[in-house]
């Protein structure tokens, strides 16, 4: 937290790259004085809190956000590129996963099972984080074709799932044969009852 505060910027209408206002405002000066007084009187814990308060409102910090001042046409191009980057992300990872899957082999070992678990886990995670992946884009206000992007992203994840299923199939983990269901078969009911044996006389 301490380090993050130093890079903040104060809003200035001119087109300079960045600037830091080294002159503390009146309110900031007041808090520093109050904190110093408290540190002298009380125990360490309060002093730390006061210290935090000081560092939170260190020099150059501003509560206000700075508007991005990149020209509109440039922004749109960059935004489109970034959004397609996000949307195609899963698809781009597919070749790597395929190599992984191929290398794991079809035998059962700790490695191959871990890779199969990973193959399933990743696309499911990406599908669930679909909205958060596009959250920043939505904030930017790209509303028009975001559904298309989401669809592409979703389909990309599905290819991963398909790969995982194919892997399971080739490893024999999918219950696609009769033999996989035989344990659940009920016992046959008998249509006849017999009794008897040798006769005593």
């Amino acid at each position, binding site marked *: 937290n301490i380090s993050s505060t130093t890079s903040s910027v104060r809003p200035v209408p001119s087109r300079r790259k960045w600037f830091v206002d080294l002159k503390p405002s009146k309110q900031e000066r007041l808090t520093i004085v109050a904190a110093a007084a408290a540190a002298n009187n009380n125990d*360490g814990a309060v002093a*730390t809190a006061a210290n935090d308060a000081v560092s939170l409102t260190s020099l150059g910090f501003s509560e206000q956000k700075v508007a991005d001042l990149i020209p509109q046409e440039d922004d749109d191009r960059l935004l489109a590129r970034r959004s397609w980057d996000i949307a195609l992300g899963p698809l781009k990872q597919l070749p790597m996963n395929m190599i992984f899957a191929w290398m794991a082999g079809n035998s059962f070992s700790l490695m191959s099972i871990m890779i199969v678990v990973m193959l399933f886990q990743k696309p499911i995670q990406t599908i669930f984080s679909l909205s958060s992946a596009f959250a920043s884009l939505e904030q930017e206000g790209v509303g028009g074709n975001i559904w298309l992007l989401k669809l592409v992203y979703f389909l990309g994840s599905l290819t991963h799932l398909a790969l995982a299923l194919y892997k399971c199939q080739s490893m*024999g983990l999918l219950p696609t*044969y*009769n*033999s*996989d269901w*035989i*344990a659940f*078969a*009920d*016992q*046959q*009911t*008998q*249509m*006849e*009852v*017999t*009794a*008897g*044996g*040798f*006769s*005593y*006389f």
Partner: protein
Amino acid sequence: MRWRKVFETNEYGKIDRIIWYDQESVIISGQGRRARSLRYADGLEVWQLAATTTNTNSNQDTVAKHCQVIKNRYDPGTIHILSDDLLWSVSSYGEMLWSIEIPIKSTLKNLFLLSTSQYVIVGSLDSNSNQLQVTYYSKQDGQQAFSSSLPWSFNAKDSLNKCSTMNNLILCSNNEELSIITIPTTTDDTNVKTRHIKASSKIEQIRILYESTTRSVILIKSDNGETKIYQFNKKESTSEWDFNELNIQMKSNSFISIATDKNLAGQQILEASANDQKLNFHVSTINEQTLTNTRSYSVELPENMGEIEYLAYSVVKNTQLVTLRMQDGSLLVIKLADNGAELILHRDEALSSIISVETFDLSLSITQMRIEEEFGGTGMFSMFTKRISSQVSQLISFFLRLLDLFTHGNRNRDYLDKQAALVRDEFNLNKILIVVTSVGKVFGILTQSGGILWKNFFPNFAPFEHFNAVHVPLFHIRSAAHYTHEPLASIVYRDRNSLHDTHIRTFNPYTGDLENNLTTSSLPYHVKRVFLSTQAVDEFCKVLLFVDTNNKIHTYPSVPLSRALSTTIPTYIYLFDKSEQAFVGYYLSIDENDQKTSTNLKEVWRVSFQNEEVINIHTRLSSDRVHSAGIVLGDRSVLYKYTNPNLIAVVTEGIDYQKVPFVNIYLLDTVTGSVKLSHTHKRVKSPVHIVLSENWIVYTYYNQRYRRYEAVSSSLFEGEAQYNYSTFSSFDPIEPVIQSKAYILPYGVNAIQVTTTEKGITSRDIIMATPNGMLIEIPWILFDPRRPLDLTPMDREEGLIMYTPEIMVNFESVINYYKYVYNIRGIHTVATGLESTSIVFAYGLDLFFTRVFPSRIFDQLKDDFDFMIIGWSTVAFVVGSFVAKRFASIHQTKKAWK
């Protein structure tokens, strides 16, 4: 027990006579073909001799062999043995003195063997001329000295049954007359003298009680119960004998035995009789013609043991000992002393003749019962009140128990322990075994200790004949599952005296108490077969169904057949008729509203065997469960099993037109009468031991050509598709595919059985009892008929092992370790509450009980599982994590200060 010697199971192990010496005894067995000597001190077999025979094949088995063994009274170290046409002499030191073969003639039968100081005399009956030919052989070298003949009025069979020999006398009973024939002992004297003793009615039995060179005592028993005892005294310097009657008042059921002792002046005679649970003895000394010094003893027996079957009286170092074998197979040794008789040994030898075994679950404990009750309700409100009330009662009983512990301490601990032994354990591992023995004694045995819980003796007991074995039907009338009702077991047996009468005895397997409502001795029909109903009738009790000789079916107790048998599923009954050598199948049709308690059976099929004789029928265990309907192959397809529960295995034996003996095995469907499998084995000898389970059969036999024991395993499959996945009917047009393989066994087989588990999920093991006393557990996978000749990856995927003809048995699979058990006749397996565990009970001469785990212990923790380490490490981790949390926060704070 100091030592024991188990003889062969074949004819060489059958003891003909035992001759007792001071240090050792000579035992003649195998119809006079084997002689061996056992030392008393350590049971060591000092020597063994086999008779030298040249003509073994001439008349084997066709003529009933006859054997006579005598100890030469004038030379006690010499034993003469007459075995059919072979006469041989052995000395008690294990030296074969001589052996001769008496020339065979079809009309001549060697019957009697007598001995004198110089000669061994053989009496042979010439059936042509009705003369007894008496031949004298020299005692020293067996040379024939001379012979004479005398008229003889009995035929060969009567002579054997009604005559006995004693010194140089032949005693024969002829209705009311006892003839005493004196055989001359020297060449000079050739007079054969015959004298008679009259009895009041027909003589039933002559027994020689005591025999010496100068004096003998015999007992004559008439069929009106009168018993007389005669004393024989040798006349000076002749071969003739005087006799006189000893006046003893005897009861009809009493036994007599005589003991001599060097210290005693004469012989002591002991009369013993059994009376309910009491044994009465009268000991007297024989004085010339009268009895003196009569003393009476009596001893209370711990239970009813029936009549006396054998009595021996002996005086050892001034201690009078009486050894008895009772009708129930008990061995008793009673010491007679001045202060009365004392029972010093009682062994239940009946346990070595078990013929039927059933197991019962132990009763639920009170808490388990409450749990059953607690979850027993149906309505929501009733269930709720039940739970509350039962939990309150649990709380009360808990406090009462605490109170009891404080006030009484451990005083009634023994009683509680005994009660606890009868309560079912958590996994239902401990059971109670009900065993029926061939003498009519029934035992309840606890499996956890092997202790006998109770015993019942049924005096008029006779088992049913079952091919070459005996058989007693033993049924679960009510199982232990109904905790509100005590379980019941029934046995059905014949009457000893009138074999057509059938008795039913129903008892509680926990206590042995008879249930008199379900016990009867009089059924108004002759029973041909008995079996258990498929449905429980009153109070969860099943009923017995009897097929009588008119092919009518009856219920006992009398209930309508429609209640005892299912009306929706048809019932078929099959019976094997031994005289016709045919299986006959009957159909039983029951109308739902019919109240008849008996009905006629309709014949629907018949399978008869020609030129072969059925020697055994084998059915699958009633507890057999099949869990999976098929086998998963390497390519992940399914091979469906043909699990027909109506199959029985039939073993037949015969001799084909080339005089080659063969054995046939059939799998017969008892609903349709169709044969599903038939195998022929040539040059093969029975006994055939069979295991029939799931969809497979394993059987063993002796191969005479290669002189080894072999096993054949066959499996039946429906194929790649199932005809009907939900129901099975024998009428389904399924032609099962059969796969078979034969294997060579490393040992012979006495009995064979398969393990049983509750659900049938666990893989199967074959338990095999071998003649050398081992019980071997062999996985069925080794007998799998699908074991391939060359192993493909697909087979390996399936888990098959490559076929090798030999079944390798490593010694780890011997489940009784060095506790060898001999002459096992049967093995009983039961499922337990744990799927991994099966109970094995082997019975025969010895009994053995254990648990086996065919698929290892997969549903329980190992014995060496360390609860302490797990418990303490869990505690340590919890404590450690709290400590670490504290330290971490301190560390964080310190770091923040920096």
